């Protein structure tokens, strides 16, 4: 059994080398996030006037920011924030979207019509505008940032799941389940839901990266996860960008981290799409 599993892993690794690269990148970041406390050499919040804008090297592997805080330690703790935002928002958005799409596709009728209209309304409001208004009304904080980024994800997910459900409803096994007198709800949960998981996972992975970028954009515009939490977006925007000439490390490292993790999620997302959703396979 075990060798079978590892064989499969080896096969997948050969089949999707880029996906493996993505998975490795993600794993590194996730591990860094989980063990941030142990990995980070310094406290990410402690300011130190003597280390203000210290160059990379020595105690400060990636230099220090204006406040004399260690950039490397902040990057590692920042992985927590960025991953929390992206995973949280993706889960929340995809979860709500899937529930809505499932209900809408399955119940149909007026409810479906209503959900579709609402989705259309949400999609014609620019995403960043919605996120801006939501963060402004809830106030800047980590959970609020997650909510603000998650809500605009809902309509897209709901639509994909809905169309999936509509085609699944016509499938023989659903017909068969109906014939056995299974309740509609049970059919929806037992038969239809698991079959929407593959596209859902594909869609969610694709969203992971873009949520990180949205958080970075929000931070750039002065919203997003507030100080002193070291979100990468916050780190490379605002004051950091101003010191780019004397202290380019303030901009380069967080920017690279964002690009790298988004790159990783995209690689992984592509591979997952290939593996799970044959219709979209390259």
């Amino acid at each position, binding site marked *: 059994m075990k060798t079978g599993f590892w064989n499969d892993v080896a096969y997948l690794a050969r089949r999707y080398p880029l996906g493996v690269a993505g998975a490795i990148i993600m794993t590194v970041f996730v591990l860094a996030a989980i063990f941030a406390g142990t990995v980070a050499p310094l406290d990410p919040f402690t300011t130190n006037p003597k280390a203000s804008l210290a160059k990379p090297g020595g105690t400060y592997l990636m230099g220090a920011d204006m406040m004399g805080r260690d950039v490397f330690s902040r990057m590692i703790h920042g992985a927590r924030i960025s991953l929390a935002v992206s995973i949280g928002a993706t889960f929340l958005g995809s979860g709500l979207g899937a529930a809505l799409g499932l209900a809408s596709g399955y119940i149909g009728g007026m409810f479906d019509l209503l959900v579709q209209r609402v989705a*259309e309304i949400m999609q014609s*409001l620019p995403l960043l505008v919605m996120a801006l*208004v939501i963060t402004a009304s809830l106030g800047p904080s980590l959970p609020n940032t997650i909510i603000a980024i998650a809500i605009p994800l809902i309509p897209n997910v709901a639509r994909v799941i809905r169309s999936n459900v509509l085609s699944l409803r016509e499938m023989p096994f659903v017909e068969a389940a109906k014939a056995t007198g299974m309740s509609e709800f049970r059919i929806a949960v037992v038969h239809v839901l698991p079959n929407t998981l593959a596209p859902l996972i594909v869609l969610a992975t694709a969203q992971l990266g873009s949520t990180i970028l949205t958080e970075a954009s929000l931070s*750039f515009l002065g919203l997003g996860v507030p100080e002193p939490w070291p979100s990468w*977006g916050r780190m490379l925007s605002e004051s950091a*960008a101003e010191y780019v000439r004397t202290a380019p490390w303030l*901009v380069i490292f967080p920017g690279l981290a964002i690009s790298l993790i988004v790159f990783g999620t995209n690689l992984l997302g592509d591979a997952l799409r290939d593996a799970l959703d044959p219709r979209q396979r390259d």
Partner: protein
Amino acid sequence: MLSYIIRRLLLMVVTLFGVSIAIFLLLRIVPGNIADILFDSAGLIDPAEKKKIVADLGLDLPLPMQYAQWIGGLLRGDLGFSYVSEKPVIDEILPRIPITARLAGFAMLFSITMGVPLGVISAVRQNSGTDYGLRILSLSGLSLPSFWLGLLILMAFVHYSGTIPIYDRNASGWNWWMLQLIPAAAVGFRSAALIMRLTRSSMLEVLRQDYVRTARSKGLSDGAVTYDHALRNAVLPVITVIGVEAAFLMGGLIVTETVFNIPGVARFLVEAIRWRDYPMVQNLVMFIAFVVVTVNLLVDLAYMLVDPRIRYGS
């Protein structure tokens, strides 16, 4: 066909109506109104003065009445006055539209002219070095934060050429083109990457189709097969994505207009939200929503034009 368009137009009206309610309510959920912001900017609060402003602007009226006033005006073509500049909203919005429209247009143009051919090349040379290179390029396009990219571009320009490609309304000639194209490329990079990926996978899908084999069995050259038979089919999903991107592009425009200091509607909208300038935000969002649904309609019509299966209904 005609009835379809009429149906779509009706749905558009319903959607826009929904958008108007949504934005109206959203804005009023947000804590603080223009009076708070004005007082914040002056660093003090005199409750009496604040109350007066609120009353002057009609912000103490019941919500349905405020909504009716706004929509009533909107239907008559009267967008009201900006709370901040105290000028007619229309005068604030109109001059900014061409600026953003140009940027968005060039960005879209950039992303299509880059994305489609590169996607085709990538698909035709599937699994070659070129393909891998292009795929990594497109993935990085989706991975770079656009404002970061914009900042790096600015920095590079200042460093190497001593000029800075930020908006300059007096620019002309070659300079004008540079100032249009550089931000357009910065904002269009992501869309280009997206279109490239989509073109590639769509193209690969199409290249597997029977009719491509048929075309080759007829003795057509690879070029004719790829561009005449396959590409035509492959761009169909790309067209839909262009529609979806129209709404997404707005987000990119906001940060790009900020980085390149372009006085367009996108950045203006963010400022208006910050100032709680309701008439400005409401009407701008309505305008943007209108553009988005119109683009979607146009995309669907274009789709019909290109795809006979939909045109003649099956």
